[in-house]
């Protein structure tokens, strides 16, 4: 195939940033080698891509080769006794839970969508609603195989080479290509979780309730009405969930059936959910979203408050998949997300600032999500002992520059408070601000690793160029 025949538009999940890339879709190691050879001949850097679920520019680089690894999607081994799975990097989270649930296992860390690949999840070291309890996906990885930019292949295990192990995971695909990963799944006794919904009238209450719940519940996630002002600022709803203990689910055999976990295709059994985003589209503006946020809080803080119910694991976990193609409501400009991680003792102050900055700019977040986190041992970690606030913003041509500048304003108090940022979500941070959240020795070590494993900087992404590399 001619190189120009590989040219495609490749974009982030949020559809707000993208670029032309020469896309290679290998299905085996020979295909990876072929892509490297072609890229070398053309002098093209290579950006790694899984399912393209990073919101911003992590999985492409304009005018470069893009190595789409989603075609390497074989399950190489599954031990139903120990819950250890060996997979190629393109295996999706959906494939992973479908494989395991029938045997009573569930991925220990899941994202809000089941689309990401294992390779992508390890590259970005993703977390879930149970970050405080279970850490990031990297903490459940036993070992992985990696192909370096020079073609050399290595097996890296947590036990035998802990330094390299913790440097590669979370290094957003800049140190090598993970071609196999071994993960340990989490034992579950039911395909259901028990969920409790509570409302909080203020940001202070949100943080306090989330903190109280973190040791009692497996999952803690909060939604904030980012349109609320004054004494209502930061009000929202929290959802806590726990796995059912053995014996609690009388029909565990049925709930652990993968087919039974599939999300319903219709709403109320009538309206195809694939059409729902079209109904939501007219409300994708400030007045519309203000009304939706208000209604959601209104219902959640009255009839929904303190409600306890059971929900399937998939339904609770993969909210972003609940309405297919919902992100299309943000077209044509797409969306960006800013997720900041702030130490617990500064979180209220910083998040209050952020919500107020958004309101002052006339750009309130259409969807704001709060989570509780803990630090992790990875070199380029985004984890802190504290909270994260993820803010979704629609992108329009007219307000794009203002939005990007506002994101810088949102990030400054985070950096000052000793917080961190999450590359999987980012599209707009300036590099100096991102780097300022790391200690010098961390950045030096990353640079040394890059020099050691990929001195010619063959592996690059638009995100890495923006956040890490200065040239």
């Amino acid at each position, binding site marked *: 195939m001619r190189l*120009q025949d590989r*040219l*495609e*538009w490749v974009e982030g999940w949020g559809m707000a940033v993208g*670029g*032309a890339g020469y896309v290679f879709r290998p299905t085996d190691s020979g295909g990876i080698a072929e892509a490297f050879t072609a890229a070398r001949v053309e002098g093209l850097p290579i950006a790694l891509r899984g399912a393209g679920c990073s919101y911003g520019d992590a999985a492409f680089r*304009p*005018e470069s080769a893009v190595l789409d690894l989603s075609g390497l999607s074989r399950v190489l081994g599954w031990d139903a006794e120990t819950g250890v799975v060996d997979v190629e990097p393109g295996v999706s989270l959906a494939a992973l839970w479908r494989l395991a649930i029938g045997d009573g296992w569930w991925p220990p860390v899941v994202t809000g969508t089941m689309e990401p690949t294992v390779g992508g999840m390890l590259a970005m070291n993703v977390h879930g609603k149970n970050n405080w309890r279970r850490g990031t996906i990297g903490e459940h990885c036993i070992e992985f195989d990696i192909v370096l930019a020079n073609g050399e292949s290595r097996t890296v295990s947590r036990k035998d080479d802990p330094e390299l192990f913790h440097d590669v995971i979370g290094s957003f695909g800049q140190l090598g290509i993970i071609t196999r990963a071994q993960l340990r799944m989490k034992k579950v006794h039911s395909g259901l979780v028990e969920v409790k919904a509570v409302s909080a009238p203020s940001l202070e209450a949100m943080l306090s309730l989330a903190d109280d719940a973190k040791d009692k519940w497996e999952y803690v996630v909060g939604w904030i009405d980012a349109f609320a002002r004054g004494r209502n600022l930061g009000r929202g709803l929290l959802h806590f969930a726990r796995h059912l203990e053995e014996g609690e689910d009388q029909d565990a055999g049925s709930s652990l059936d993968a087919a039974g976990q599939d999300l319903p295709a219709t709403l109320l059994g009538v309206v195809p959910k694939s059409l729902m985003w079209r109904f939501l589209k007219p409300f994708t503006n400030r007045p519309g979203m203000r009304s939706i946020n208000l209604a959601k809080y209104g219902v959640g803080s009255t009839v929904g408050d303190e409600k306890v119910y059971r929900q399937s694991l998939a339904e609770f976990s993969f909210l972003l998949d609940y309405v297919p193609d919902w992100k299309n409501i943000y077209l044509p400009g797409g969306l960006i997300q800013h997720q900041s991680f702030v130490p617990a003792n500064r979180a209220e102050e910083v998040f209050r600032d952020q919500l107020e900055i958004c309101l002052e700019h006339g750009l309130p977040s259409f969807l704001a999500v709060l989570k509780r986190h803990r630090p992790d041992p990875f070199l380029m970690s985004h984890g802190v002992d504290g909270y994260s606030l993820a803010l979704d913003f629609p992108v329009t*041509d007219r307000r*794009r520059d203002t939005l990007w500048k506002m994101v810088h304003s949102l990030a400054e108090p985070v950096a000052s408070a000793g917080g961190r940022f999450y590359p999987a979500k980012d599209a707009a941070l300036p590099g100096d601000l991102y780097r300022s959240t790391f200690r010098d020795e961390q950045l030096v070590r990353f640079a040394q690793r890059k020099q050691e494993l990929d001195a010619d900087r063959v592996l690059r992404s638009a995100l890495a160029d923006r956040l890490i590399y200065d040239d």
Partner: protein
Amino acid sequence: MRFDHALIVGASSGIGEALGRRLASEGAKVALVARRENDLRRIMEEINSAAGEERAIAVAHDVRAVDDVPGLVQEIARRLGGLDLAIYAAGSMPAVAVDEFNTSKDREMIEVNLVGAVAWLNPIAERMMRLGRGTIVGIGSVAGDRGRAPNPVYCTSKAGFHAFLEALRNRLAKLGVRVVTIKPGFVDTAMTRGKEGLFWLISADRAAEIILDKARRGVVTAYVPARWRLVMSVIRSMPSFIFSKLGI
């Protein structure tokens, strides 16, 4: 619509130069392509100096060297980091006496105004078609609307260019690529300087401002300035036996 990465062929003077300066001042990265390397470099340096960063790159190229174009398009896209706007503004209009039939001059006009345009816009159109996005702008002329006695082949080349742009548009519109035909009237450039009988003359910068506005809005065909649309609709609908008597 934002233009972040633009290529302008014919950027060393006139409308092309003005488009380059305006796009760069708005924050776009711009590739300036033209035959006259010294002029290009001067413009590039002025743009970059005003911006305080590298916004413009200069690529010397004679549009008659058509075989070089596909490689240049790829190189420029890589250097810019993308290509979302391509403008063909190169043009040749040598002085032709009313009783002169000069194949050498005519050939130059066809080569620069039409063949060069096809050579540049073909690979760009193919690239944009693959990506499902992009805007192509062709700087034609009101002269392309009728066969005018004073300069037959200039009119021919521009009429051919307009037809080519329309065909491109019809191929690409459903694939997400916009093709905009611009028909300027009299613009104060080196090409028109010293010519007699000019009216409604506008500056190259004003023309560039209008052209970019039309391109952003994805207008199909725009006269610049707009009042030429009325004039040209009258001229286009005029019977030949009347038009020939006007001698324009």
